[in-house]
C-alpha cells in the first residue's frame, strides 16, 4: 500500500463526504447563476470591496429596508474593518437619519400624545430598525406575506449570493401556461416560480453618488455583496487568518515529517 494510494483513499473518502453536502443543500430554485465577474468574496483570498458595499447599502436602505428588517446588523458594524468602510462620522450621520423605538419613558409611557410609539434618533450602537412593528403589521402591509429578515439571507439559501443575485435580476413575464396567483410575481429562480415580492429594482431606482450607472444588474450585484457582508461580516478576517494558519501548518507538517524520518531512520518498519 503506497503512500499515494493511501492519500488517494483519504481524498476519495473526503470527496465522498463532501459530495453529499451539496445534495442536502439543493433547493428547488433553477440553477442560480453567478455574475460573470464572479464574487470578490469567494476563494482563498476573498474580500469585500468597500465601494460595492457602500453602493449595496444605498440599495438596501432605499429599496429593501422599506419592507425587510436586518435585525442583527448595527450601524456601528459599517465602520468596522472588512466592511463598507464608512468613517465613524458617516455612520453617526447615517444613524441620525433613523428613528428607533424609545418607550417606555420615565413616566412609563410607551406612546406620545397622539398615540404613536415613542421614538428617538438612532446612534451607531443601535441595530437597523425594522420597518414594521411586528409580524402582523408586516403581513398586513404585504398582502399576507412576511418579508423575511435579511441579516442572514446570503447564508440561509443554497448557493446564497448567486441565488439572491439571480432572483433580483431575474424577474420576467409569466409564461403563458403559468397561471399567476393574485398579487404574485413570476420569477424562475424562486421555488415554484411565484413570489409575493414584486420586482423591487428598476433602472435608476437609486442614484449612486459615485456616478455608477444604476442598472438592475448593477444594483442586484451591489446589494448582494452587501447582504453577504451582513451575513458574514468576519469573512475577510477569517480568510486572512486561514491563510496564515494553513501556511503555519504546512511548515509544521514539513518539520514533523523530517523529524519522523530522522527518528525512524534506523528502525526497519
Amino acid at each position: 500500500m503506497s503512500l499515494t494510494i493511501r492519500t488517494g483513499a483519504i481524498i476519495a473518502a473526503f470527496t465522498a463526504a463532501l459530495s453529499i453536502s451539496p445534495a442536502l443543500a439543493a433547493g428547488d430554485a433553477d440553477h442560480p447563476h453567478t455574475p460573470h465577474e464572479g464574487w470578490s468574496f469567494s476563494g482563498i483570498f476573498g474580500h469585500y470591496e468597500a465601494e460595492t458595499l457602500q453602493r449595496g447599502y444605498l440599495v438596501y436602505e432605499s429599496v429593501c429596508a422599506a419592507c425587510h428588517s436586518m435585525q442583527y446588523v448595527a450601524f456601528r458594524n459599517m465602520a468596522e474593518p472588512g466592511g463598507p468602510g464608512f468613517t465613524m462620522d458617516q455612520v453617526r450621520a447615517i444613524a441620525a437619519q433613523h428613528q428607533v423605538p424609545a418607550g417606555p419613558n420615565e413616566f412609563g409611557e410607551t406612546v406620545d400624545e397622539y398615540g404613536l410609539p415613542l421614538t428617538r434618533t438612532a446612534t451607531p450602537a443601535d441595530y437597523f430598525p425594522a420597518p414594521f412593528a411586528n409580524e402582523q403589521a408586516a403581513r398586513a402591509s404585504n398582502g399576507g406575506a412576511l418579508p423575511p429578515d435579511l441579516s442572514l439571507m446570503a447564508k440561509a439559501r443554497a448557493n446564497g449570493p448567486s441565488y439572491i443575485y439571480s432572483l433580483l435580476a431575474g424577474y420576467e413575464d409569466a409564461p403563458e401556461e403559468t397561471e399567476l396567483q393574485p398579487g404574485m410575481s413570476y420569477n424562475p429562480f424562486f421555488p415554484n416560480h411565484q413570489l409575493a415580492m414584486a420586482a423591487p429594482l428598476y433602472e435608476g431606482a437609486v442614484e449612486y453618488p459615485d456616478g455608477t450607472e444604476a442598472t438592475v444588474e448593477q444594483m442586484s450585484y451591489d446589494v448582494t455583496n452587501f447582504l453577504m457582508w451582513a451575513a458574514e461580516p468576519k469573512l475577510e478576517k477569517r480568510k486572512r487568518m486561514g491563510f496564515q494558519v494553513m501556511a503555519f501548518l504546512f511548515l509544521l507538517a514539513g518539520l514533523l515529517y523530517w523529524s519522523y524520518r530522522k527518528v525512524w531512520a534506523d528502525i526497519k518498519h
Partner: protein
Amino acid sequence: MSHESTYQPNSGAERWLDARLPVLRLMHDSFSAFPTPKNLNYWYTFGGILTFCLIVQIVTGITLAMHFASDSKLAFASVEHIMRDVNFGWLLRYIHAVGASMFFLAVFIHMFRGIYYGSYKAPRELLWMLGCVILLLMIITGFMGYVLPWGQMSFWGATVITNIFTAIPVIGTPIQEWLVGGFAVGNPTLTRFYALHYLLPFVIFGVVLLHVWALHVTGNNNPTGIEVKGPQDTVPFNPYYTVKDAFGLVLFMLVFAAFVFFAPNALGHPDNYIPANPMVTPEHIVPEWYLLPFYAILRSITFDIWFLSAKLLGVIAMVASIVVLFIMPWLDTSKVKSLRYRPMMRPFFFLFILVCIGLGWVGAETPDKVLFALGDFQYQMVHLGLTLTAAYFAYFLVILPLVGILEKPSPMPASIEESVLKGRKPAQAA
C-alpha cells in the same frame, strides 16, 4: 500485552510522588515506554486524532457555552451574537461546528481501519465494544448539539428524531413526551438538550479513558493482525509514535483548517440560518451528513410485517445497525485478523464501504426520487435504501460468519518482525 514498568524516578520529588501517587509512572508506562508494534501505518494515527477532536470540541464548547443562551427565544440570536460580537466567536463556533464533522470523519476512518485489520477480534472485543459505546454517545451528543442553534433544521430534526420513540407500542408516546418535555419540541426540549449536550462529552471522555485502558492491556493490533511476540516486534511509543501521530495529526488539521477558514458552512444546511419556526416545515428535513446512513436505514422500510408497523421496523433496523457492531467480534468466524491475508473477505470490505457511502447518499435524497423504471415498476431512492440496508446487515450477519468458514487465508509471516524484514509480501493490501 501488559508490560513491566520501566519507570525510574530520577529526583527526590519524583520518588516522593511515586511512593504516594504513581501518576508519573502511569504516564511513563502508558504514553512513553509503552511497547507498540513497529509496523503501524498512518491509519493508526486516527486514535490520537480523535483524542485531539474530543479536546477541541470540549474546549471550544465550554467557551461557546459562556456566550450561548439556551432559551428558545434567545438561542438563535445568541449564536449570532457569538458570530458578530464575541471576540473570535466566529472562529470558536466554526471550529466547533466543523469539528463535529471532523470528529465523525475521523471516527468512521478509525472504525473502518479496525474492521479491515480485525482489531475487534479476541482479545480486543471489549476495546471494540467500548469504541461502539463512544460512537453511540457521539451520535446522541452530535444530534443534540445540532439542535442548540435553534434554526429550522435544528427544530425539525429534533421533531423527527424524537418522534422515533412514538414507534414503540403503548409506551412510545409517553416516552417521547417525557423526552421533549411537552407535546411538541419547544423550550423545555432546548434546555434539556443543552444540559445533556454539556454533560455527554464528559461521559465520552470517561469511556475514552476505559477505551485507552483496554488498549493498554491488550496492546495495539497491527496491520498484520499477528500479536506481538517479543521486544523485536515493538518500539517504545515515545518518540516513535508521538512523532508519527503528530505528523498525521497536522495533516488532519490542514483539512480541518481548510474547512473552518474557507468553507465553514459547506457541511451544514442553509436552512439552519433560518430561525426555528414551528408553523413552517422545511421541504426536506435532513440530518447532518454523518447521520445520513442511519437516517437512510430508518426510512428504508415502508411495509408492515405482521403486527409490526413500517415505522417501528425502521426504528428497529436503525438501532440494530449499531447493535450489530457490538456483536461483530462473535460474528466473525475467521481465525485470521487482518484482511491483508483474507483474499475472499477483502473485496467485501470495500463493497461494505461503498454500501455505507451509498446509504449516506440515499439519506440525503428524497425517498420517492425515481432512479430507473422497468415497465410499470419504478425503482426509487427508497428501494435503493432497502437494498443497501439489506447489504449492510448481510455484511455482518451472512458474509462475516460464512466467509470465515469458506475462505483459505493467504500465507502469513510468522511475526511482525518477519513481515517487516520481508516487506509486505506475499499478500499486498490494497
